[in-house]
């Protein structure tokens, strides 16, 4: 036992920390190269390209990809977002209200709609006319999707707004009140404008989330003029028995979502500098 450290020590001393680091890095590169080699050798690249990136099929997606699918995705997302933004602000104000029943209603709504899968809510909306005979969601499919996205988005946006409203210092309300503004006027002239400015970055992320959730239209069985990117890709993929349209739809999503993501983090950074 007493000899062991002696024998171990010279062995350890042979490698300096820098050498150990170099070896570790070498192993990581070796693993990466091995995986790439296996991928290149064993994947059937011709078949993959045929199924996911077939130029002839990709060409079939035009021009409907942009004139119908992307257009509808944007219509669904923007209309849902407008509902989510307004309803989210109302819910956030209710959540922070002095009046207890308002707080309860807001909490229950937020918890339910954040806790349920978006798909479930979409399906429920399609059943609304059955549950309420004579009831029609205005603007047909557009209205249904906007309502679905808005109902979900409002719950998340409410929490975003709540954080923003609570981040406005108490002194701001005191200054407004000491100038003779009523509590309501102080909220609308002083607190809410500042809160909205603060929540622009997380709200941009919420917009991206709604954009992706608009793909759930896929499950609503809408007619061809209402398809958005996901359903458009899926329909064409089935028609051609080829996944290329799905790839094309995916790339179209990324063309929108990645710049928005960068925009959100740029805005976040600017806010950090101003504080």
């Amino acid at each position, binding site marked *: 036992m007493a000899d062991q450290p002696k024998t171990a020590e010279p062995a350890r001393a042979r490698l300096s920390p820098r050498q150990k680091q170099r070896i570790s890095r070498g192993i990581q590169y070796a693993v990466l190269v091995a995986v790439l080699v296996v991928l290149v050798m064993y994947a059937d690249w011709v078949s993959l390209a045929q199924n996911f990136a077939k130029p002839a099929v990709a060409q079939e997606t035009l021009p409907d990809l942009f004139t119908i699918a992307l257009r509808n995705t944007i219509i669904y997302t923007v209309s849902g977002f407008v509902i989510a933004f307004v309803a989210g602000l109302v819910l956030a104000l209710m959540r922070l209200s002095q009046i207890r029943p308002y707080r309860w209603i807001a909490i229950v709504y937020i918890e339910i709609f954040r806790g349920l899968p978006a798909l479930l809510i979409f399906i429920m909306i399609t059943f609304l006319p059955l549950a309420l005979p004579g009831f029609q969601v205005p603007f047909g499919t557009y209205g249904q999707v906007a309502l679905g996205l808005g109902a979900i988005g409002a719950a998340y946006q409410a929490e975003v707004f709540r954080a923003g409203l609570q981040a406005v*210092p108490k*002194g*701001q309300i*005191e*200054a*407004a*009140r*000491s*100038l*003779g*503004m*009523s509590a309501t*006027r102080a909220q609308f*002239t*002083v607190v809410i*404008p*500042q809160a909205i*400015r603060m929540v622009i970055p997380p709200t941009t992320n919420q917009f991206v989330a709604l954009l992706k959730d608009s793909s759930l239209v896929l499950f609503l069985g809408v007619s061809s003029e209402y398809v958005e990117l996901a359903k458009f890709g899926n329909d064409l993929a089935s028609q051609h028995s080829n996944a290329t349209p799905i790839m094309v739809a995916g790339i179209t999503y990324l063309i929108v979502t990645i710049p928005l993501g960068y925009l959100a983090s740029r805005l976040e950074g600017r806010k950090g500098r*101003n504080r």
Partner: protein
Amino acid sequence: MTHAIELKDLHKHFGQNEVLKGIDMTVDPGQVVCVIGPSGSGKSTLLRCVNLLEQPTKGQVFVKGVEVTHPDVDIDAVRRAIGMVFQQFNLFPHMTALQNVMIAQQRVLKRSKKEAEIVARENLDKVGVGAKCDALPGQLSGGQQQRVAIARALAMNPDLMLFDEPTSALDPELVGDVLTVMRKLAEEGMTMLVVTHEMGFAREVADRVVFMDGGVLVEDGAPAQVIGDPQQERTRAFLRRVLHPEE
């Protein structure tokens, strides 16, 4: 004569903590009264009770003879006539200096945009920041921000002004600019209740100095008496600590 401010047996509790323990005091029109005292003595709370930013637990507050603690009083109307300046300035950061001074004129006094702008520019000129009309608060120094805040209060044509440690958050070299503006207001006959640690200002500008400690008024009199020749041991101890901190 009606007092500008009258406090009768004013009490304020925060939970178990009794911050004001029965304050009686008056401020007459045109008077400048400085409230001094150690931190935690209740000075700011006293000031904030005058325009009901704090609701007194017990007692009455009268402003120009009107009981503002009465449940039926329109508190927004009362506050309109009382200018308040805060330690942390509390300018609206999303508005320019000019907009800060205009907004309450437009929304509360219902002045036209044109009139509000004229009044705002006058007051910003008066406090020496007329050149900074289009700057956002974040682009101004603390001293400039505090002067914009004073202009914002003055634009409402208040009958009296409350100052809550207006220079405590300022870098030392910026204190003078703000005190100069306050001195000018005092000379113009503005009724002012000022919570401050600036003993020089209190001695030179105040008509009366009030020393508070532990939620009660300990001493109340002319500055030469309260600062120059305090009668109470608590006042003397406080002034020793403030005027000769190194000893």
